[in-house]
């Protein structure tokens, strides 16, 4: 398996450097000559390949399997949507990749996440630091709490540049100013020295995006960036992300619970349920030909897909308790199509068509 080889390549001890490398070059060069890195350089493999990721939280009340065997890949410049309800493990998945899981109680039990030849889950902390904030950036849900209220926006904006690049403070400020203008903040030269509380919610999210993009990352992870915003501001922010993606050519992982947001923005969509991926397809296939009963139910419960005033379709019951082991398909107790078989056998994510995977035994058997 190609992927297994890549995972190992990431774990190899770094070869002794021939000459002293500049600090900014960082650790990723340690396996510059590895086959995986070579393949990555020539675009033979995806930008990011996650295999069998399992992140569990060990607490006094039990082991919570927040992410339980997630695997996906992301090409350069692609936009991938991850959709699911709260508690489905979408945020934990990307936090695991970025090394942001609090340990303890969290623990990454298995899996690999190979980003451009480097396994993010196995590389030394210093190597991860040189990637995080430089080549992979992240924006978070709540722009009110993700900026430091004590620091001027200018200081926060140039921080990633000062850390990751050899650049003078004045030059960094110039780039920060250009970035603020690019994300649509008027009068940026004056506002760059303001404090976060002087900005509105939408403006703060623009500052967050400017901060994330200032190092020209290859991958932007957006964790529900518009959930806390008004629809009109949400439309502005989505448009901005699309525009910046066009300019920088970066890949985007977009996490949301809103299928409407996904439909306009993403090339491909993953649907998560109880820590597992239940369906993965390109956006049009997922919306027009969903296969998994959960995806179908989720789509039918949106008010705008239903005639006005009609009773909305609802999914009976509640998402499962992930602290108890789930033997078969996690959706079984709420699924109208479930059979005895579904309770015991793990369906696994299998292709139904090229580029369309789903995890329902009855669909796999051709019964649905």
């Amino acid at each position: 398996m190609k992927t297994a080889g890549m995972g190992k390549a990431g774990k190899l001890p770094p070869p002794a450097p021939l000459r002293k490398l500049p600090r900014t070059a960082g650790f990723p060069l340690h396996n510059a000559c590895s086959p995986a890195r070579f393949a990555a350089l020539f675009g033979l493999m995806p930008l990011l390949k996650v295999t069998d990721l399992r992140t569990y939280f060990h607490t006094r009340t039990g082991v919570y399997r927040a992410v339980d065997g997630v695997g996906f890949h992301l090409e350069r410049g692609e936009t991938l949507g991850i959709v699911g309800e709260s508690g489905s493990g979408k945020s934990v998945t990307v936090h695991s990749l970025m090394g942001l899981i609090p340990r303890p109680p969290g623990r990454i039990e298995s899996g690999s996440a190979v980003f451009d030849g480097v396994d993010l889950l196995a590389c030394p902390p210093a190597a991860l630091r040189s990637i995080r904030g430089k080549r992979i950036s992240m924006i978070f849900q709540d722009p009110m709490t993700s900026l430091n209220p004590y620091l001027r926006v200018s200081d926060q904006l140039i921080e990633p540049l000062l850390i990751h690049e050899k650049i003078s403070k004045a030059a960094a400020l110039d780039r920060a100013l250009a970035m603020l203008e690019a994300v649509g903040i008027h009068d940026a030269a004056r506002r760059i020295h303001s404090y976060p509380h002087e900005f509105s919610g939408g403006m703060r999210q623009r500052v967050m995006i400017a901060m994330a993009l200032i190092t020209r990352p290859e991958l932007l992870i957006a964790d529900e960036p518009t959930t806390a915003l008004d629809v009109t501001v949400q439309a502005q922010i989505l448009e901005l992300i699309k525009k910046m993606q066009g300019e920088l050519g970066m890949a985007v992982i977009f996490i949301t619970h809103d299928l409407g947001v996904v439909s306009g923005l993403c090339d491909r969509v993953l649907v998560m349920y109880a820590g597992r991926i239940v369906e993965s397809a390109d956006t049009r296939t997922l919306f027009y030909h969903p296969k998994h009963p959960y995806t179908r139910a989720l789509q039918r419960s949106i008010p705008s897909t239903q005639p006005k005033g009609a009773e909305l379709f609802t999914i009976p019951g509640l998402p499962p308790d992930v602290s108890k082991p789930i033997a078969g398909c996690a959706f079984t107790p709420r699924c109208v199509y479930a059979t005895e078989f579904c309770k015991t056998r793990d369906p696994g994510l299998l292709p139904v068509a090229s580029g369309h995977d789903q995890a329902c035994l009855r669909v796999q058997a051709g019964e649905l």
Partner: protein
Amino acid sequence: MSDPILELRDVKTHFSVHQGILLRKQTGTVKAVDGVSLTVQRGEVLGLVGESGCGKSTLARTIMQLLPTTGGSVLLESKNLTEGSASSIHAIRRDLQMVFQDPYASLNPRMTVFATLSEPLLVHRVCPPAEVSARVSELMELVGLAPSLMQKYPHEFSGGQRQRIAIARALALKPKVIIADEPVSALDVSVQAQILNLLAKLVRQMGLSLVFIAHDLSVVKHISDRVAVMYLGKIVELGTAVDVIDRPQHPYTRALVSAIPLPNPDAERARQRIMLPGDPPSPINPPAGCPFHPRCAYAQERCKAALPPLAAFQDREVACIRAGEI
């Protein structure tokens, strides 16, 4: 036909802004709600939409008399609530109840479901203490919760179940009007559908009137009979839900409708989106004339001159002087 139960007449809620520590001076006024007139019919669902800061929650709190009105009157079955004494307000609360946005914050974490639901019954002495338990069971069944969960605390419930408890609490006194301030915004899509179905069922069964505040227009369209769109403390468009959301007239409503992401990739990518520049202006010094003119694509010189009144246009009311032209 017309049977108004709740009537707002030119309601104003202003907050004064003070500055300075020793010599506190009033330096301005936030006109959070500024001249809103509305009627809600018996058994009707009125949707109230607008961006954050437009005054929809302040309006809800003003109707509930949780905030003092600066001007105008709120009439519930022809009784003016703004002139009432504390004891008459207390009596009126039986007919007028509220459901809040965040079911994690609106339930007392130290009270069991039974304590939460029995409190209004005891305070208003609506039933003899011996019957309280039976009434609480009845309420729980009404909102789709098993009465056996009565002795549990809020933290043992999911978000959707907590919102059901909050709805049961609002229903305890058999009110005539419920004000629901973003009751589904904090919930997941599948749970949101359950709560919307529950609210629609209760309105039908109990003949309730519901003022439903939300920022999600597709949710509002689904549940409401009529919709009022608010901008900067004023109503800019008012009409039936289908008219307002499918054929919006006011430029602000048009922008709001075009900003809703559609769960349909082809339609979503094909459509023309009206991007509103900037943020809503500060309600401390709103722009002169039409408050929307700085962000409006159709604004002309005369829009800056005078405040357009909410006037009848076709089958609805619109506050835009160019309503017929654009």
